[in-house]
């Protein structure tokens, strides 16, 4: 429980900090880079190394490569849906989460399982 609370606090601070940084910068396409900031991984990596060791963290990072590929597919698809198909932002980003999950687990099944 203590570990989860610690993760919530550290993760919340890291994600909020990168989001704020993104809001401070212009143009928007540049600020968008911070939407892909490694906030969650920075927040958890130190905790993971302290608790589980470096090998464990390294295995997590290997899976993160696939998660990041899924992230690119997710962002490319929702950006296109909003521009070309004129889909609502909330609908596109929510639908996109399903796309990310499908891609991430599909890649994991294909390459790491």
């Amino acid at each position, binding site marked *: 429980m203590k*570990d*989860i609370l610690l*993760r*919530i606090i*550290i*993760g*919340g601070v*890291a*994600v*909020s900090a*990168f989001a704020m940084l*993104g*809001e*401070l910068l*212009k143009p*928007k*396409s*540049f*600020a*968008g*880079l911070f*939407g*892909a*900031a*490694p906030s*969650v*991984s920075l927040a*958890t990596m130190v*905790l993971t190394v302290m608790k589980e060791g*470096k090998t*464990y*963290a*390294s*295995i*997590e*990072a290997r*899976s*993160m*490569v*696939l*998660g*990041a*590929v*899924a*992230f*690119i597919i997710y*962002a*490319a698809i*929702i*950006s296109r849906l*909003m521009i070309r198909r*004129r889909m609502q*932002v*909330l609908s596109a*980003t929510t639908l*996109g*989460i399903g796309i*990310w999950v499908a891609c*991430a*687990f599909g890649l994991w099944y294909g390459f790491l399982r």
Partner: protein
Amino acid sequence: MKIKVDTAGLKGTKWYEFVFRFFMGGAITALAGLAAKRFGPEIGGLFLAFPAIIPATATLIKKREQQKKERAGYEGAERGRAAAAVDVAGAVLGGLGLITFALVVWLRMREWKTATVLMMASLAWFLVALSVWQLRETFCRRMRAHRPNILTHTLRSVVDRKPVANRR
């Protein structure tokens, strides 16, 4: 296009938007930890690249741009959507940096000190993201100079719309 710091965006942010992002970030971080504990680091690692910020940020950008345009008497919904799409397109480029970050951590975690790995990986993320963004800007500028109608058609069709009052 030059990179600028503009505090106006931050001033317009409501307190509950900060709270929402904080809990969203915290929830994803906790989820990544729980997934790793339950299913192992191979599954937990996937969630380290979960798009935690994008849904909230894109919705916020759309709302702000829409309000700004509507205050000026223009139709704002499409402009808001286009602005959100541009922000998300930027995240595609940032995603390439995210892959680099993960590669550095994966390949160097066992050899280097943790702090050094994370610093080098963060630096690699920023440099790759910045370089790809710069390349894209240069490419788009050149394309616009040669064939202005193709790349800018969608955004210009949104921006150039007449004010709502005039169309009635």
